Structure formats: structure tokens, C-alpha cells
């Protein structure tokens, strides 16, 4: 089978790219291992809502049509939204088609799938940033009597044995899961490493509204100070809920979740877990970083004459850390029955047989233009803009990269 461009992955990134290629009359096919919005369907916990408000899912030629622009979509709503988008843009999606390898060929790329082979001139990798749950190496030393699961395997508290739970990781995923599990009556301890604190609502508006309006989400990859660092920054500690609740370390402490330092070591055999003494600094870093974001928002509000229209500027209470947080836990004592790894996700490129990975297994690219000519990457953190990994970021990236792709095909056609 032959097409000009293959898009791998039918999530928001792949669908937005499909729409942009259609606009440019570039022949293409979207390959999807499962169904449209597959990761949203199969790899998320039950209560999860999008972290961005409904109005903020603007895709090329499509947007929110309902009457709750400030709400946060449930997973079924997110799936329905993307399914509808696939229909509206008439994306040529081949579902249940798993890519087994992508390799260079004489005139582009050969893509082998479990539903036959494809030949194409250009290929767009839109398989997402969160294919595999990262589990630290020290997980090997956790006693066998402890149940362990990743954030990707977690569905709801009922799935978990009664008793104490250790959630490792305090970004958006870890904080939400800790909140839900602790409220279910399972005493929860949260191991906190580097994290990014942000309030759900600031001065009466959603933080995402501010970041969008003030241009924070449009910060470009080729203009920020240290893009390698910016791409590694963890997700904002946000949650989507009907009540627009802020879930942060203070709100977790208030309901009785115990904060502890980053999980540093588990000794094989005796099951003693050790936690870093850096909790206070991790929290100080996050508070300071949040305040810099709020400073930027305040400056923007003043410059744009908004100060009279929104609530006054203020700062949130610093994160409270107990005087001497514990540094150790005996995993054999029975206090902890379950460990949940909320230690991040990474992409899976095991099927990519093109030498474009760096020594850490990341694709080498310049704003989504991969080193290998005619290959493009989408949907990873800060690909081209701070919003690149958001649904709302797929559109601008698809517009930019489809323009590059079109000129690549044009040049290739002439040579």
C-alpha cells in the first residue's frame, strides 16, 4: 500500500495533523493501533477529567460546542469529543492497525503493520508522550507482599486492598490519585520529588485562562532559556473537577495525607524504604516557581487593564512541611499495603527503526522536525510551544509542521 504521508496515532495530534494535510490536499492515512483516542479510552483512571477547561480544546476546524465552557471533560466526554473531531475532519483513520516498524527506504519510509505494509514519503509520529509508565529501578527491591501498580493500571480505589497506600510522585497524576485514595479510607502517604504547583483558579479565573491569555502557553521552544530543561519539567499539579478544586500538597495535608520526601532507596531483603531529606526544598522550589508564574500573570493583567475586572492579586500560603518529615518506612511492617508509581510516563519508540534517538531514547528533533528528512514528531511536552502536549496545542503545531512537511514534499518532488 502506498500513500504520501502516514500519520501514526489517532489522538488529538494525529487528527489535527490529518485536518491540516487535508487542507493542503496532501494524500495521507492515519494508522491507529486501537481506536480513535485509544490512550484516553484504555490508559486512564475512572474519575480523571481533563486538566484543561472545555473551551480550551480548540482544534483546527473544531472546538467546544456545549454550554459548559468552564467545565472539565470526563474521559468518556473526551473520547466522544475526539471521535466527533475525527468524523468532522473526515480523517482517513485505519483503526486496529498496529505499527510494527518504521524504517527508511529508497523513497521515504517503509511502515510495517499487522495489517500490511505501507510505503510513504513522509511520516508523522503522533503516538503521544505517555505510552509507558515509568517505574524507578528501586521498585525491584519492594517486598513481594506489597501490591504495586502504575498510574496507568490504576482505575479506582476499590481496586486496592484496604490499608495504607504509598503514592510515589506528586505531579498532577500522583496528587489526584493520593486525594482520591485517601478519601476512600485508605491512609495515604505521598512521596514528593520535583513538582510544579499551580492553583486551579487565580483572581477568579482558571489558571489555564490566564496562561493562555498572557501568552505563557505560547512560549516558543526556540525562545525559552533552556529547552532541554523545559521539556523535562513535570506537569502542573492540576485537577479537573466540578467544584474547580485545587489539589495541592496543602489540600492533601488538610485531609490527612502524609507528605514524605522523594523515595530514594529500598533495601533488598529487609524492605526498608528511605526517603530524601529534600522535601522542604522541593516545596520551596515549587512555591517560588508558582509565584513567578503569578507575577507574570499580574504584570500582564495590569498592562492589559484587567485589574478592575478581576479579583485582586494575592499569594497562596506556602506549602506546609512538618518539622521533621520521616526519612524511612518499613515496607514489611504492614503499614503500607500498596504502592502506586506515579513517577511519570515516557513514549514507546520500540517500533522505530530509524537512527534518530539520543542516548536517553528521546527523538532528536528541532521543534518536531526530526533529523531524518520527511519525519515529524508531535504531541510531546514543549515540542514547539509550552502547550504542545495539550489538546489545545495540537492545532498550532500541526499548522507549523504541515507547512514544513508540504515544502519538504515539494522539494522532494522537484529533485
Amino acid at each position, binding site marked *: 500500500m502506498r500513500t504520501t504521508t502516514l500519520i501514526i496515532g489517532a489522538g488529538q495530534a494525529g487528527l489535527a495533523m490529518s485536518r491540516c494535510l487535508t487542507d493542503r490536499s496532501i494524500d495521507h492515512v492515519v494508522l491507529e493501533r486501537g481506536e480513535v483516542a485509544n490512550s484516553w479510552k484504555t490508559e486512564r483512571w475512572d474519575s480523571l477529567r481533563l486538566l484543561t477547561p472545555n473551551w480550551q480544546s480548540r482544534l483546527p476546524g473544531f472546538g467546544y460546542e456545549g454550554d459548559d465552557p468552564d467545565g472539565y471533560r470526563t474521559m468518556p466526554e473526551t473520547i466522544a469529543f475526539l471521535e466527533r473531531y475525527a468524523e468532522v475532519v473526515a480523517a482517513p483513520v485505519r483503526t486496529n492497525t498496529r505499527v510494527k516498524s518504521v524504517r527508511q527506504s529508497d523513497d521515504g519510509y517503509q511502515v510495517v503493520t499487522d495489517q500490511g505494509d505501507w510505503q510513504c514519503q513522509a511520516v508523522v509520529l503522533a503516538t503521544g508522550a505517555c505510552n509507558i509508565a515509568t517505574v524507578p529501578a528501586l521498585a525491584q527491591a519492594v517486598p513481594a507482599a506489597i501490591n504495586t501498580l502504575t498510574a496507568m493500571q490504576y482505575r479506582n480505589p476499590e481496586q486496592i486492598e484496604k490499608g495504607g497506600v504509598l503514592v510515589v510522585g506528586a505531579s498532577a497524576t500522583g496528587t489526584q490519585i493520593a486525594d482520591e485514595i485517601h478519601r476512600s479510607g485508605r491512609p495515604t502517604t505521598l512521596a514528593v520529588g520535583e513538582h510544579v504547583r499551580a492553583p486551579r483558579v487565580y483572581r477568579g479565573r482558571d489558571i489555564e485562562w490566564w496562561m493562555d491569555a498572557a501568552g505563557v502557553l505560547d512560549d516558543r521552544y526556540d525562545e525559552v532559556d533552556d529547552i532541554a530543561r523545559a521539556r523535562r519539567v513535570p506537569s502542573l499539579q492540576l485537577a479537573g473537577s466540578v467544584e474547580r478544586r485545587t489539589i495541592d500538597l496543602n489540600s492533601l495535608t488538610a485531609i490527612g495525607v502524609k507528605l514524605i520526601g522523594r523515595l530514594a532507596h529500598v533495601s533488598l531483603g529487609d524492605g526498608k524504604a528511605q526517603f530524601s531529606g529534600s522535601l522542604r526544598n522541593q516545596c520551596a522550589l515549587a512555591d517560588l516557581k508558582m*509565584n*513567578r508564574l503569578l507575577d507574570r500573570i499580574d504584570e500582564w493583567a495590569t498592562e492589559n487593564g484587567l485589574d478592575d475586572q478581576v479579583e485582586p492579586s494575592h499569594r497562596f500560603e506556602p506549602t506546609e512541611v512538618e518539622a521533621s518529615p520521616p526519612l524511612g518506612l518499613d515496607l514489611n511492617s504492614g503499614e503500607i499495603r500498596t504502592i502506586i508509581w506515579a513517577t511519570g510516563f515516557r513514549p514507546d519508540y520500540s517500533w522505530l527503526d530509524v537512527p534518530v534517538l539520543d542516548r536517553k531514547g528521546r527523538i532528536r528533533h528541532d521543534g518536531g522536525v526530526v533529523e531524518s528528512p520527511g519525519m515529524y514528531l508531535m504531541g510531546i511536552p514543549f515540542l514547539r510551544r509550552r502547550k504542545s502536549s495539550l489538546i489545545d496545542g495540537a492545532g498550532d503545531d500541526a499548522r507549523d509542521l504541515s507547512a514544513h512537511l508540504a515544502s519538504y514534499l515539494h522539494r522532494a518532488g522537484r529533485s
Partner: protein
Amino acid sequence: MATSKKQVDNGVNVEALLGARKALTEAPEGAKFQWRATCKWVYGTHSRSSIHGYFGLGEEHKHKTEFTFEADHPEVFASEDKGAAPVEMVLCGLASCLTAGVAAVAQHREIQLRSVSATLEAGMDIQGILGIDSDVRNGFDGIKVTYKIDADATPDEIKAVVAQSQKRSAVYDIIANPTNITVEVS
């Protein structure tokens, strides 16, 4: 970050450090260092440590001179107090590491420092080292570092420099996180 060239001089060659970071990103083998110390018992609890050679950037190096450090214990430990106690030297290591980081981060952020001083306090219940109570650990029960910094920056910018210094500090990491130790007798 501002791109304007402010005249900030904390005496840290940030360009060289950034250059090294770039070079070592491409050649990570060169980033592998080994630090060394030797120590000789003198008499009683008095010992003398020496620092001279180290390995890094793929080859052997030597400090310009050999540095020596006297360590002992104070008279309340029935010692002769011929040098700082080893636990105090740990505090020196932490203070120097954090302070070097403060200077470097401030330079990178174009913040002129006028004065930086740190006071370190570490509590210890010596029932641990004396073997009186096995529930008491030998080491510190906590370390408190208090910085006084006069600099050309807002209080939050200064706090951010100190926080970033902790985040990048080797000695902070060595103290805050476990490290495997192998002690052999040859």
C-alpha cells in the same frame, strides 16, 4: 532571562561552566569524576587527611597544592581538640558546596552578590554514638542552614537562587539521600 549585558561579577566563569555542560552532554564519559582523600592516624582521636589527586574529564589531575585537614574531637570528648570534629567538617562541606552554588546560580541569573554568609546548626543526640540507646541514630537529627545574603535582587529572587543551589548541590544530595559505602581492609 534578560539578555542585556549587565555588569555582574561574582567571580564565577559561567561561560566556561556552560561550555563544559554542552561538551559533556555530547561526551558523557568525560563527566565521570572520582574524588579522593587519604587519612593518617596521628594519635588519640587526632588524624590528618590529605587531598591532592582526582580523576575527571578522562584523565588524572592534581590540585595546585596538597591540602591537609586536621581533625580531632573537643575536650568534652576527652580528646585534645587539635582540629575540627569530623561532623563539623561535614557541615563545612555542605556550607561550601551550597555557597559555591549560590555564587554560580546568581552569576548565571545576572544577580550581583555583595555579601553571603551562612550559619549551620546540626542537632545530634550522642546517645547514638555512645551506644546508650539503639533507637537513636549516630548522625545528625537534622541540619539547619541560615543564609544572610545582600544582593542586587528581590527577596524571592534570592530565595530562588538558594533553592536552586540546593537542587544542584552534590553535598546536599550526599547528605539528603542514601549512598552505598564500602569499607575494606587491605
